[in-house]
Structures are given as structure tokens and as C-alpha cells.
């Protein structure tokens, strides 16, 4: 009788562990695909683009992030290759002049102030340090987003920021990075 109770207890624990470790991550995250089948790899290899050809700084030091359609259509006014993805992109976005609703993997919440200029121009960090190696990806990654908080899985957490700042002895005050 005693043994049966232990087995039931362990069965319950096992079921919870299974659900918590295997089922829960599937439930709490939702995935979204980029609207355009964009390949960083092709742009880097065939067109010889560098990160800052498209992801540029403005004169005031702010970072423009994902380029607007103007930038795309300056090359893709007509098809340059023969891929189906490019043809679809031109048909759906370039010709009707519709801005693609790009998904951003690293969108920080509203209360965070982050200056790309300080990190890239002053601290000479490589883009890959925080964004991973996007440049060699052949297909856009799927955006994995938390259903409750709405944060992307790729979003750098404050712990990650603090760890690096602590190493560099650059930790000053909360309002250095919050607005």
C-alpha cells in the first residue's frame, strides 16, 4: 500500500516534469515568419553587401534599423535574379509601393534606451556579438515570441547587458540605459 502511494506520487511528478519541460515551451511561445523570404547570405555573397550598406546610421547618431522599401527598390526595381522569392517580393511590395511588415528579433521594450552608435562606433563591437551571425543565414529565422510578455526569444535580456557592462566597468546608473 505504501509503495503504491509512492508510485502515484512519482507518476504525478513525472507527468508534471514532462509537461513542464516538453509541453510548456511549445505553449508559451508563438512563432511568426518574416513576410519576405529574404536571404542575408545571397546579399552578402552575390551583391557583396556589408551590414551597414542597409542597416545604416543617421546623421544624429541614431540607428535606422531595418531599411525601408526605398532602399530595397533602389536595386530591386526590376528582378535581378530569377528566384521565386524575389519575384514575389517585387510583385507584392515593390510594384504597389507597400512597406513590408518586417519582424524585429531584438526589439527592446519601450523603457529601454539603446544606442547602436555607442556600442558600434565607440566600443567597436561587432554586430554578431549581440545579433548572432545573421549575415550568413540563407533564410530568415522564425521569430519566436513569448505569448505573455510579448518579448522575442532572441531579445538580449538585461542580465546579458549587465554582464558585459560589468566586465568593461561601464556600469553607471539605471538611467544610462532606461528612458
Amino acid at each position: 500500500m505504501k509503495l503504491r502511494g509512492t508510485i502515484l506520487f512519482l507518476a504525478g511528478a513525472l507527468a508534471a516534469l514532462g509537461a513542464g519541460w516538453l509541453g510548456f515551451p511549445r505553449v508559451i511561445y508563438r512563432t511568426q515568419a518574416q513576410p519576405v523570404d529574404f536571404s542575408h547570405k545571397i546579399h552578402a555573397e552575390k551583391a557583396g553587401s556589408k551590414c551597414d550598406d542597409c542597416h545604416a546610421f543617421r546623421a544624429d547618431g541614431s540607428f535606422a534599423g531595418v531599411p525601408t522599401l526605398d532602399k530595397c527598390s533602389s536595386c530591386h526595381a526590376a528582378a535581378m535574379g530569377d528566384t521565386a522569392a524575389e519575384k514575389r517580393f517585387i510583385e507584392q511590395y515593390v510594384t504597389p509601393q507597400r512597406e513590408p511588415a518586417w519582424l524585429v528579433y531584438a526589439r527592446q521594450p519601450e523603457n529601454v534606451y539603446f544606442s547602436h552608435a555607442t556600442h558600434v562606433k565607440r566600443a567597436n563591437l561587432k554586430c554578431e556579438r549581440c545579433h548572432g551571425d545573421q549575415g550568413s543565414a540563407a533564410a530568415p529565422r522564425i521569430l519566436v515570441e513569448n505569448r505573455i510578455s510579448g518579448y522575442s526569444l532572441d531579445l538580449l535580456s538585461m542580465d546579458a547587458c549587465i554582464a558585459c557592462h560589468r566586465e568593461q566597468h561601464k556600469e553607471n546608473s539605471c538611467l544610462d540605459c532606461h528612458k
Partner: protein
Amino acid sequence: MKNTRRDIFKFAGGAAAGALLTPVPWRLIKDSSLWSENWPGIPRPARGEIRSKTTNCALCPAGCPLRARCVGDQPVALTGAGCAFGVAAHHLPYHPARLRQGPVEQAKAALAKRTPSEPIAVLDLNPGRTASWTFRRAMAALDGTYISPDPNPIAYDLHSVRTVLSVGAPLLEGWGTPANVLAAREKFYLVHAGAVETPTAMLADEWIRAEGLPDPLPRRLLENGPSLAVGDAPGVAELNRKLGAPVYARPEAPVPDAWKKQAAPVTALDAVPARGLRFLLIDESSAVTYIPWHLIEPKLASDAVVITFAVSRGGYARHATYALPAPVFPEITEDIPAAIDQTTQVFRLAAPLVPPPPAVVNASELVAALADIPAAAALRERADFIHMQSPAHPTPDAFWQALVDGYIWRGSPSLPAQSSPTQPRPAHDLPLTAVPAPWTPALLSPLMTKLYEESNLRLPPNAVALNPRDAAALPSRAVLQTLHGKCTVRVVPDASVPPGIVLAGSSPGIRDICTHGDGAKVVLA
């Protein structure tokens, strides 16, 4: 073997213990706290490229040069304004009291039914604009009357005087062109006459605590010339004549000769015959003054049609047959007339920063259409005319572009004025004397509540301030009563208001019934 209740509890207990070893509870705590940091329902500011645009403020004739900070095309901040109103002028298009819809078609139909013999008039509450000339041309064509609140506007030169007497004028509270007044203030000795402790009284070199022209006159005024008296109290114009003060006719930028030839004369409201108007069009869209309704009402025929071009329901819209929605600053291109302290001709534009809502109508264009005169390009026509007279830019197009970007054209100085004497004020036997708060634009940014609701810096528009002695028996809500009517107001006790004076807020309801020096009483509601 049968499952018992105890077995279920054992299983559940195991599940609970197991769950603690999974990410579930910890993740839920963290995610919900992250969710609460980005509280839903709190608006997110738009992101985008920060751009800068320059223009001029059209809220009052000061026309302060503004720099607008824009996210994309949306202005988010204005700098360069000389007052609290201009700093937040980019909020006006979104004001909850903004008039956005109106019976435009009905008003047009009513105007179309007018026969040429029926008297029509335009009351222009911001005279001296290009739109004012359009009104005058249209009234000439329709045989109508163009009414201006001040047919002979004057201008004061503050820079050439050593003593200034302010007779109740809000000289340091946004009067004239604030930047110009403050620059001149360094050089003149200021005497302020007024019962209420206004900012001007507090900052003046000498303060005479009585309403009206002081008697005897302050010695500095007579001995430390050249001197100037400022204000619209009776006797100020005569005093200026006696002092030989630098009073000029209000300068106006050059006007195409063709317009002058076919423009209706500027008429004062007093000169309009009683019950003489069948149609009255009021342009209060950029009003810089307010005429109490009890002065307008006697001029209307019994079946008069009153059409007002308004930005809110607060002004003449309360009395009009049709209240039509008009554009606010910064929605249209408009020129700004000269201010009371500008003695040289100026021509400057307020360029639009945001598009107007679809239903708004432009008063000058509607009136011009009645008379079949082209008005849409009137500003450009005048700019080209000015360019022809004094070419400061290589081409008319370059001149126009510079104007749109905030360039201020300056012309020749104006001539000494022939001022008209002011009317004496009627005597009264009411216990209090009204002193209205300085004029404010009809529509103010919702943030102005910082000044009068969330702090005590300014008197709220619908309030009156009384000496605590006069306010002693009154509740916080009472009725302000004058010879012209009554209005429910909030009563604010204020030790800086002397007994016997009621400092009245600037809401249209109060302005309709009380002007400076009127007799008043505040009674229980």
C-alpha cells in the same frame, strides 16, 4: 484495486512537486512581471527618423519663429515660442473640444438663397491677414460690410522710450512680441497701474495699486522721457498725444494694387446700423480678440443667419446658426499680421505641419467663392507682389519657398498714427469691478491644465479670483453677474486681489458678459 480520493491527492501532490522542478512557475512569474512593465493601454510613442522643420507660430500676431521637432512628419515638440501656449501648439489639432464636423452644406445652401439686397457682413477677428483682404474684396463684390474689431490699429515702439506706463496692460505676460518686449524691457523704466497683482505688476519698477489712468501721473513718466503709455483704458491715447509718444499706425505688408481698388472699407462694429444684418459670417478660426456677444447681437436682424468658422464649440458657435469647422494652427498656410509692438512691415507665413481633417472649411475660400473671386492662391499672389517690390531672393519661387520655411520678410517702417479716442466706461452701482485676465487663444493644448488645474499658476478659464474677504460667504461654485448677463463660475480666493475687484477668467462665457471695468457681483448659484 480501486482508486481512492487519497490516490488523487497523492498524484496531485507529486505533480505539484514536479512542477517546481520545471520552468513553468518561474517563467510565468517572470513573464507576467515583464508584461506588467509594458502595461497594455499605455500609448507607445512612434519611432522613426527625427527631422526638424521651421515655421512661424500663428496663435497670435507675435508670430514667434518656431522649430518643430518631428518624428517622420509628425511634430512632437516646438521650440522658439515665447509663451506657454505656443510651446504646445502642435497639440491643437487633437484637442477633444476641437470642432471637426459641421453643417457645411446647409450653411452654403442658406448663403445661396441670399438675394443681393439682403445685407451681409464678415466679422474678422484676426484682421490684417491676406485672408482679411480676401474678405474685403468679396464684400466689395457682394455689396457687403467688412467689420474689424479695431479699424485703426496702432503700434508702439518700445525701443525708443525710457519710461513706459502700463495701464492694466499685461505687458510682460505675452503682450505684443514677447522676445521684443523682453529685449526692450532692459532699457525702459516700467510703471504699472492696476489693482490686481499681475506678473507685470510684480516685475514692474513701480506699481500703482489702482485701476485706470493714475492721477497724478507718475513723475518719471513726465521727467524721464521719451515716454509711452500702453493699455486700452480711457485716456491712454490722449496721454500718448500729450507725451509725444512713439505711436504708429500698425504696419501692413504691401498689398497688390488690384486688391486695394476693389476692397470694402474697414468698418467698426459700432458703425453697423442696429438690426441691420441679415447674414453675418464670423471668422474666429485664428481669433486674436473677442467681442462680447451682447455687442454683436443688437446688429442682427430678427431672422439673421450667423455662420461662424470656429475651432471649438466654445466661442461664437454657442450663438451661431451654423458653426463650421475651421482649420487650426498648424494645419494651413496662413500669414501672420503685425503685432502691436512691431513698427516695420513684416510678411511671414505659418506653414502647415499636419494635414487638416477632411471636413474643415477655410473661411476665406468659402467667402471668396460666394463672390466668385479667386482666393486659393491669394497668399502666393501677395508674396509675388512683395518680391517684385523688393527682390530679396533670386526668383519668386525661391522667395515663396523661403517664406514657407519660416523666412520673415521685413519692409519699411510705418507712419505715426492718428489714434481714435477710446470710449469712456459706463458708471455702475454693482459692488465689484471686473478685471478680465489677459486674452488667450480659443483653443489651448490639453496640457495647459498643468498651469491652472494641477497647479495654481494661472486662473482657470471658468474661474474668478476674489479677495478672501469678498469670497468669504461664497461656495466654490457661484454665479458671476454683470449688466450683460450671468455665468456660473468657480470662485478662487486670492489674497493678491484687492477687495472690490473681481479677476475674471478667460472662458468665452465670462468674456461674453464682462469687459474691463464693468460692474459685477458674485452671488450664490
